[in-house]
């Protein structure tokens, strides 16, 4: 697919893309690392929200600030920042999630001189009235802080327009997942992963145009391509930093029909109400979307969601892709695995470093897992 090829190049080198975007459009670029960043407000301010994934380069500079038992995502992003690769950023925002990012924010504030720095100290629990009210307060403060930092006024109308755009993007991605679920051969896992990541990197209006074309293409293609009856699988974890995993799975005879990832369904689930106060509506979405393990909803919420994803996808099994040293995900793994087992869904744990792993080894493990699936 031509459109996807273009996206893949961007996803492969988001930093060059962002630099160019800045040059050409004059837009301010605001970095963030997490799906809890209120992107809609950044977009409404006329700036460009850019998700940072960290590069795969060797860590030298970040070693002076973060010990080796820090996850590679945070070490990688800090390395990029310290080396100056991110010096085009006009600002960086840190929504509160895990302990590691919490400290990254401090270290960033003390060591990175370019761009403004905003903390968005979200509530950790998302299940009480007081935390809801606090969430709205936090979003309102963010709006004010951003107005000051960018010296702009963000009107309710701006936010509403942005909400409409995001609803279309999120709805579109959901649509692609549905098509993939119906017929897994319609788009490869690797392409789908690039499509989701590009949503966090590209100019959102440009992106939406491409997304709509992709959907149209998939819809016509969907009726002509035959399903091959490969083993249907779900991936669960944090960010999926190994796009190759999809090809490995496909080579092993499986196919990914859905996910519980923050570079996947956790990014696009839940739409924002278009009526009423737009800030309250943005806050409200955080209650509807599947929760990340660094936040508390019901103590069983994540298992229920994962089982639902697996059952909706008629999946034969689940692969957990966990980043080494990621506490929130590592804590949830045993209970998620058990909850899946209780409804007879087998699972496989793959612990990954950000560095590309020996593909052969991964493939053997996945093949062995697929063989155990009935």
């Amino acid at each position, binding site marked *: 697919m031509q459109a996807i090829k273009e996206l893949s190049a961007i996803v492969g080198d988001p930093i060059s893309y962002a630099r160019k975007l800045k040059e050409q459009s004059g837009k301010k670029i605001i970095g963030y690392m997490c799906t809890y960043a209120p992107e809609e407000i950044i977009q409404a301010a006329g700036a460009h929200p850019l998700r940072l994934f960290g590069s795969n380069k060797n860590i030298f500079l970040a070693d002076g600030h973060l010990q080796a038992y820090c996850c590679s995502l945070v070490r990688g992003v800090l390395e990029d920042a310290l080396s100056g690769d991110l010096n085009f950023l006009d600002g960086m925002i840190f929504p509160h999630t895990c*302990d*590691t990012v919490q400290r990254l924010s401090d270290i960033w504030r003390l060591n990175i001189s370019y761009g403004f720095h905003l903390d968005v100290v979200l509530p*950790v629990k998302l299940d009480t009235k007081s935390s809801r009210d606090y969430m709205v307060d936090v979003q309102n403060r963010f709006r004010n802080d951003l107005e000051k930092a960018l010296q702009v006024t963000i009107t309710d109308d701006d936010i509403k327009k942005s909400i409409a755009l995001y609803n279309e993007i999120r709805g579109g991605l959901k649509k692609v997942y549905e098509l993939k679920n119906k017929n897994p051969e319609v788009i490869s896992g690797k392409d789908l992963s690039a499509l989701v990541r590009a949503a966090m990197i590209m100019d959102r209006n440009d992106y939406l145009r491409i997304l709509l074309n992709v959907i149209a293409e998939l819809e016509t293609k969907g009726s002509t391509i035959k399903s091959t009856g490969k083993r249907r699988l779900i991936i669960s974890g944090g960010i999926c930093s190994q796009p190759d995993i999809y090809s490995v799975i496909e080579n092993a005879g499986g196919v990914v029909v859905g996910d519980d990832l923050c570079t996947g369904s956790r990014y696009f689930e839940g739409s924002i109400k278009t009526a009423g106060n737009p800030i309250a509506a943005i806050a409200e979405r955080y209650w509807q979307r599947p929760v990340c393990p660094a936040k508390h909803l019901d103590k069983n919420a994540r298992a229920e969601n994962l089982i639902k994803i697996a059952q909706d996808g008629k999946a034969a099994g689940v692969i957990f892709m966990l980043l*080494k040293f990621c506490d929130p995900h*590592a*804590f949830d*793994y045993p209970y998620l695995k058990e909850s899946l087992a209780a409804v007879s869904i087998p699972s496989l744990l793959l*612990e990954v470093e950000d560095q590309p792993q020996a593909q052969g080894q991964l493939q053997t493990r996945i093949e062995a897992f697929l063989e155990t699936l009935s």
Partner: protein
Amino acid sequence: MAEKDPAKEKRKIKSVKKMKDIMTNYYIDAKMAEQNGKKVAWITSGGPVEPLIAMDVIPIYPENHGAMIGASKMGIDLCQKAEVMGYSSDLCSYARSDISCATVNGGPIGGLPKPDMLVCCNNICGTVLKWYEVQARYFNVPLFILDTPFCHTQFLPEARKYVHRQIEEYIVFLENACKKKMDHDRMKEVGRLSVEGQRLWQAVLDTAMNKPAPLSAFDAFFHLALIVTLRGTKQAVDYYEGLLAEMRERIADNIGAVENEKYRLLWDNLPVWYRTKWLSDKFAAADTCLVADTYTSAWCGTLKYIDENNFIESMAEAYTRIYLNIGVDEMARDVVSMIDKYSADGLVMHSNRSCKPYSFGQLDIQRIVREKRGLPSLMIEADMVDERFFSESQIETRIDAFMEVVKERKSCTR
């Protein structure tokens, strides 16, 4: 039996025995709670215990239990059991050992009494949130989360409002769990006792400003247990009064924790529980006393925010602004002011792979201390409970090399 060394005997802190008795009785009481019709709450170390005391609920601290597991060198076994359950060896070893211990009733006291409720305050880390979710599923009991927004640079008004509301919710939670109303007069009294206990604990720690320091950080690690577990009780107040008197006596008699104290260092992060004696001996052999630490002072560090006549109200701020819930730069300021206060010649940092919020940022604090005070510092890579991450020979070499630097520097500046 060998003759006891009288000089060593003189240096032993006598209150130790009283402390051990109090802790033993506390755990016996806790284990008999059910027979005595009392409720048990598990609570995080930074959590607001005072309302529990006021409601006659017995507070249990899994982290204190974790420290006991570490000190009795039972950490590896329990951590490995957790790994068999699927918990990564990279997770906090307090959490790992507590989670597996609950399922086997192992550890030094045969497991903790079962909780009737769980109270989790995330002012120390996000780990406790996940850990308490695990236990809430395992024991199937109600969980209250006190969410204290992180204060990177400030405690914002909306955060204050949010924490205030949660403290009200906390009391309602307890009233429901205990099926009785909170006695607000009793709560006030508990608040006063808590403040008094914290003041006394600070006063005990302050005695280490004296040269020689009558107690070391290693002593403080031990005597900390009561201000954590029994804060808000008369018992804690009485105990620390006794301890303070003993410290003052030692000062009068010129008794130091280390026989021939020449060098004074500050410790950062949790203790290495299974090696406190080894480390203490190691430093003492170099005429060095670890005179203070950032860890034990966390239980009295927010006294400045507390209004003892309005405890419940001021508690929101005090519990939100504790040492681990503030930015790295503010922590560095605290470290520098402790260095000045206790006349430290250097800094020893335990880079504790279990505790990310405590350890990430240490390298920057180290740099700030170097810039502000020109003091040398040592980074020890270890883990507070899981001995597999402690390399004795490596650490020994590093301590020796570091002490050379400290001595060198001191002889130059004299």
